[in-house]
């Protein structure tokens, strides 16, 4: 018998997925009192993924025409369960409330004045809450809001290779909506994919370019002039692998 030419690792992955999903439908025993019968209950979550932030501000567009792209790591815990909110007065059995913390990176390259190379690197730390609603045992919708801080670093390099750079910190606020698709929903472990779209409102970060000097000679007094404020606000899109347990 001839089979479809699926690469062996992919075939194994699909088979594992099917095996993992099938028994999960029968093994959900850890349920919240009052929760719907076939919905899994997990208390903790780890997510790992990547995403992009479209840069729309004039300051960011002055440095690059690209979007910030990078990775993200997040953890979350079912806050409603810890606080005992899921009692009879809880409005919806499928609605859960989570506390989240995340770390996101991003980078973009560009050109300034057609001759200078620019690089923007960004690190973001956020904490917030999310509300998730299970519309199906494998599907959840969520909204989240987070506050945090981000570090932005800008480097500008000329044709000779010499560069000037600076970094700074600023606050950010993020709101997004997410679609969770769970591939497996075992009682003590769930694995899925999260599609997330939202918007980051970021504080403009004041930057003043500096250059390194390799020698230790006594230098003249220096008066650097500010490059201005870098605004990394923009809409975001992310995809991440989510593990719940």
């Amino acid at each position: 018998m001839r089979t479809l030419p699926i690469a062996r690792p992919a075939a194994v992955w699909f088979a594992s997925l099917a095996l993992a999903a099938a028994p999960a439908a029968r093994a959900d025993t850890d349920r919240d009192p009052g929760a719907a019968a076939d919905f899994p209950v997990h208390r903790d979550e780890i997510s790992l993924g990547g995403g992009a932030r479209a840069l729309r501000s004039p300051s960011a567009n002055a440095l690059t025409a690209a979007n910030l792209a990078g990775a993200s790591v997040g953890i979350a815990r079912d806050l409603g369960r810890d606080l005992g909110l899921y009692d009879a007065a809880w409005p919806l059995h499928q609605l859960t409330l989570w506390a989240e913390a995340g770390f996101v990176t991003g980078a973009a390259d560009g050109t300034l004045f057609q001759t200078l190379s620019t690089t923007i690197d960004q690190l973001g730390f956020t904490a917030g809450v999310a509300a998730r609603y299970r519309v199906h045992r494998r599907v959840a919708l969520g909204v989240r809001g987070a506050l945090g801080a981000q570090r932005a670093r800008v480097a500008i390099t000329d044709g000779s290779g010499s560069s000037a750079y600076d970094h700074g910190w600023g606050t950010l606020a993020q709101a997004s909506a997410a679609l969770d698709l769970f591939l497996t929903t075992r009682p003590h472990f769930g694995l899925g994919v999260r599609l997330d779209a939202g918007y980051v409102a970021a504080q403009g970060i004041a930057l003043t370019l500096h250059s390194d000097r390799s020698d230790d000679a006594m230098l003249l007094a220096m008066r650097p002039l500010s490059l201005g404020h870098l605004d990394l606000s923009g809409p975001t899109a992310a995809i991440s692998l989510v593990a719940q347990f």
Partner: protein
Amino acid sequence: MYAVPSEDRHRLFVITRGEQAVHPGEIDQPPMFWVVDAQHPGPAVSYPIGSPFDRIAVSPDGNLAIAYYAAGGTDPDGVFRNPNELAVIDLTRAADAGNPALETIRSFGSVPDGIALSPPMALPGGADPTPRTFAFILSAGTLTVLDTTHPDRHEVSIRLDLAGSGVIPRAVVFAPDTASAYVRSDLARDVLQVALEPQPPDPTDPGDNDFRAVVAELGAGGGPSDVAVYDDATGRRVVIAATPDTHQVVVIDANTAQFRSIPIPDPINRVLVFPSADGPPHRALFATISAASAAGTGTAVAGLPRLWLLDLDHLADPLAQVAPVEIDLDQPVHDVVPIPGGDRALIVHDDARTVLGVLDLATAATSPLLGAGQLDSYAFSPTGDYLIGATQGVARIGFVELDNLHPTDFRLDDPPDHVLATANGKIFVDHASPFGRATIIPSPTAGRGDAIVLTGFLTAGLLDEEP
């Protein structure tokens, strides 16, 4: 982009050629002419000029500018370009439908090599006593005069065939009191005088001028290689022309066209007059400097180790014997530069600018200076007390106190690219950083503790700018 400073260096005039957006996020930018006023910080004043011109001529009073194309070629990115198009910009008023005024000058096959704008000149005896600025547009074989106060009127084209074949006008000096200009041309026999005389316009032609251009040859008697103009103590305008073909220097009374020839054995190609503190100059200096080509002939000229000094005070006296004084030097002259504020000149002896001399015109004495490296950029302090020099790649600025020729150095943090002396006595050392990096030294005698390094001035506030 092309930029030139105003004569007083308080304003900078910039042409940005404009771009049409290519990538998302970019916006169209038309060709613009910008005026940046260093004395009054604020947004630059802009004028849309319609075409990507790449040269600017500014009137001496700074009230008018003309943007035009360089003779070397127009913007290669365009489909059609008109090399004889000009944008006449009235800088005293904001941009409007008539400002800038786009004009195309009549051409006989040539394109502008340069434009000289006159100081405000009133036509003597004319019905309109308002001083105006006239543009003298130089192109091979043709001199075009345009009344920039009325750019809608016809331009006046002057064929230079009468001055010789293949004549290329090179330099114009003005006599505003007589509404005249003196034109030195390559391959011309003489200096041309162009006098603007009033003439009632044709009432049936709204574009007719109220003047005519009267051209006369001033008897230099040979192809002038350099000219200088000054007003003597009586207010008489005098033109000095060097004619290397005849080994003479010709002194011409611009009002009467009378001239006096002074023989000098060397083929002089540089004429300098030295204004004195009390007004009219008293001395003129003549030199034969090395040049790649002479008068457009393609013939290289070797510098000579001699200078000639002429006393100007008695030139008007026909009975006075006028004889230039020869000043012998050790080495050929590559360049001669007047030092501001006194009767001194800097003599550059080689093209690497490593051997210099300071000539005191009062005593005709020269003092040698040796540069450790090539003098790539130099300036004089506004009072003429110091020579300030820089060598690229050497992180130092050199000062020479010109009263006693005492040299000193100032150590910099970065190699210099260009040095400027500002009118308030400060020294601006540019380090050619794309971000803007300059060392500001308060005075030639200041120490390192008094200086500051200004960085990032070319990108200052870049991220705060709105598109």
